């Protein structure tokens, strides 16, 4: 049997006192799609950096084609045919597609001058090789995420790699774009190029990869052909615990009045005659393709689309939600999709982030009462089980899942009646994810909170909602109790709309 393309033997790597990798062995064959799974902080990134030569391992050895590599550097890795596509793609938004493609090869060749004709030629070849259509003159920042990813892949393929490492490639893609990406990945594979797919999304791993390696706390905890795994096994390996799908059962209490009633909500060009109601304690899922109007629905309910037409009643009383202040006043809370840019003050402490919307309540004559503020923040850190010793740490030190808990906790301090969550667990790892889900269900059940959960993640909706709405081109196309649907049925419905 031929030697594998790349092999790690008993690799260890420490940073100061922290062991990032311990006794990790991994081998990737030629033209194989290999999936590396693990939660945030499990050592995935360190492993990628060892393979791509950014960091030298402290122990163990690295072999390529069966030959031991004494010292791997980024340059040597590239020369050996290892290319990494980072999560942020490392592209230049201000430069054209053509220049983004040509820059690195021009630099590698040590060119000093730029010939724009050659830049276009190089770019044209790279794009043709990938077999996709892209406007070479468009600035990269004007492309959608999937387009940027294609540019990054095309660029990586230019140097004739033998191993392409893709770090969380599906994070910002819609279901359809993921399918397109997989076609590209299989096409790459068919040319004998191995792909190391780094992910924490189980469904995707099962669909695309041939072999799987799961790491946890820097150690390999499971490895083998993908056929030996199912979702539960991967989750168990990644988290070290059994996370069962629990589902959310909701019984209408007799005589309860609807919390939210929306009638004929219309925003020209975005939403068309949407009517819905949410009862106390209900978790209502909202799904739909990008551009279906689901985010606009959330924004309208949060007072950010003041020009809407239609009627909105909260607790039976007709209200006009034409400003965020007014929406908050009526007990509506919104956790946006992009918590890093829209939801958190990254330079501030956990406490300050937590209290951001509670300040009027905690103030007397415009002066914040520090004692009450500290008590409230500490209480919520406990209630949301945020992993931090104290609230005066910078919020950036928290993991994605804990940051999301801070945003949710902030709104809970306001005692909302309706919580709108847009992509509540995007970029959050499996263990944290189920913790957040449990918390949301608990809140709905215990506080009688109404929840609107907008998500691309169909299993998430099916597990947590008692009813699922589907929007398409601004219209509500279906409203189904969760018992009457399934992930597959929803997936097919969405695919049919696309």
């Amino acid at each position, binding site marked *: 049997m031929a030697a594998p393309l790349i092999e790690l033997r008993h690799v260890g790597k420490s940073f100061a006192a922290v062991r990032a990798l311990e006794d990790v062995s991994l081998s990737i064959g030629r033209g194989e799609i290999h999936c590396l799974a693990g939660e945030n902080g499990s050592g995935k990134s360190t492993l990628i950096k060892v393979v791509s030569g950014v960091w030298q391992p402290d122990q163990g050895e690295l072999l390529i084609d069966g030959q031991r590599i004494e010292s791997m550097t980024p340059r040597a890795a590239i020369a050996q045919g290892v290319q990494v596509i980072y999560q942020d793609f490392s592209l*230049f938004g*201000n430069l054209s597609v053509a220049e983004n493609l040509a820059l690195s090869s021009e630099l590698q060749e040590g060119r000093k*001058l730029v010939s724009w004709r050659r830049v276009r030629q190089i770019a044209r070849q790279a794009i043709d090789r990938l077999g996709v259509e892209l406007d070479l003159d468009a600035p990269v920042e004007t492309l959608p995420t999937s387009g940027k990813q294609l540019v990054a892949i095309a660029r990586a393929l230019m140097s004739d790699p033998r191993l392409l490492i893709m770090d969380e490639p599906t994070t910002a893609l819609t279901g359809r774009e993921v399918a397109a990406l997989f076609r590209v990945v299989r096409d790459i594979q068919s040319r004998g190029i191995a792909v190391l797919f780094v992910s924490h999304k189980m469904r995707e791993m099962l669909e695309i990869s041939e072999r799987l390696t799961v790491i946890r706390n820097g150690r390999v905890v499971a490895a083998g052909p993908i056929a030996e795994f199912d979702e539960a096994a991967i989750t168990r390996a990644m988290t070290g615990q059994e996370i069962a799908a629990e589902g959310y059962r909701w019984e209408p209490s007799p005589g309860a009045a609807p919390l939210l009633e929306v009638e004929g909500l219309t925003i020209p060009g975005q939403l068309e005659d949407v009517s819905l109601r949410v009862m106390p304690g209900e978790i209502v899922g909202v799904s739909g393709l990008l551009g279906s109007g689901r985010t606009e629905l959330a924004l309208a309910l949060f007072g950010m689309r003041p020009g809407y037409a239609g009627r909105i009643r909260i607790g039976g009383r007709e209200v006009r939600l034409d400003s965020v202040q007014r929406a908050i006043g009526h007990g509506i809370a919104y956790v946006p999709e992009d918590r890093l840019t829209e939801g958190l003050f990254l330079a501030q402490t956990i406490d300050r982030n937590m209290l951001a919307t509670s300040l009027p309540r905690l103030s007397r004559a415009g002066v914040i009462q520090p004692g009450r503020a500290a008590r409230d923040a500490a209480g919520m850190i406990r209630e949301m089980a945020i992993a931090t010793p104290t609230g005066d740490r910078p919020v950036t030190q928290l993991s994605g899942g804990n940051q999301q808990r801070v945003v949710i906790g902030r709104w809970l301090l306001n005692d909302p009646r309706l919580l709108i969550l847009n992509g509540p667990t995007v970029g959050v790892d499996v263990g944290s994810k189920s913790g957040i889900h449990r918390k949301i269900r608990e809140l709905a059940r215990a506080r009688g909170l109404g929840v609107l959960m907008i998500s691309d993640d169909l299993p998430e909706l099916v597990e947590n909602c008692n009813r699922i709405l589907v929007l398409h081109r601004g219209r509500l196309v279906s409203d189904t109790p969760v018992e009457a649907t399934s992930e597959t049925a929803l997936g097919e419905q969405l695919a049919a709309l696309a």
Partner: protein
Amino acid sequence: MSGIAAAFRRHPELMVAAILVVTVVTIGLVNPVFWQPSNLFSLLRASVITGILGLAVLLVMLSGGIDVSFPAFAIAAMYLTVKAMIAWGFDSILPAFAMATGIGLLLGLVNAVFVHYLRMIPLIVTLGTGTAVRGFILGIVGTSQINIDQMPQRLIEFGRGQLFSVTQADGSQTGLSAMVLVYALIALLVHLLLRYTMVGRGIYALGGGEEAARRVGFNIRQTTFLVYGLAGAIAGFAGLLHGAMIWTANPRDMVGLELDVIAAVVLGGASIFGGRGSVIGTILGGLTLIVITNSLIILGIDTTWQRVVVGLIVITATAATAWRDRKRIA
């Protein structure tokens, strides 16, 4: 219509060009004196120093930084050079400009050291170095203005040079300053550097994303030193040129000029977030700013309003480009 909108988006220079044309036509309609060759030549002459300094700021802004130290560097280079010319008794042009450029280069490299090695915010670094250099010149080198009677003769002759002259309707002669040619030459060199060399593209790449630039193989340190060093060198050169054009060397000159220059560059379509802007845009932006501020007199507006106009231009132009860039990023 959408074709025009797309053209504007891909070539922001068209926007500045349009603003310039509208401004010129409007002013010309209000007071036809505007079209007299003497006025046009004087505007072109006035745009030389702002324009050259604008090229220095453009380099820094493209890389994602900002520079407010260049007027101080320009004045320091000019004053030191003129002092040296008088003290050592040399008045040849080339060594003089080489010296001024060299002083500017060294000062610019100081900025680069702070920005690169100490990872400090460029605005704070250049505020600090600019203020310190001004203080140093006044405190140690001298506070007295060197007037035309002491200025090196050849420097004055150089600054006086004309490309050609024409006879106006009233019979008077008016000429176009040859300094316009110097400006054009520097602009061409900067344009070629930015557009057709890898180091030039490296400046754009750095402004587009430092980490990405590093990963693709650009030398960040080299680029940073190039940007601030070159900006300092251009400023030093422009300082001496300024002295040659006004026949005096005043160590307290150019105070507050940084705002005019930044206004011109931003008006020319450069992004305050870095990575976007061009030499052509900067030239047009500089011309527009000069035309507006220098035409207040012939428009019958009190010149005290000049600072108000500059302030408003900075705010509107920055708001417009920031709005444009944010829309792109979103």
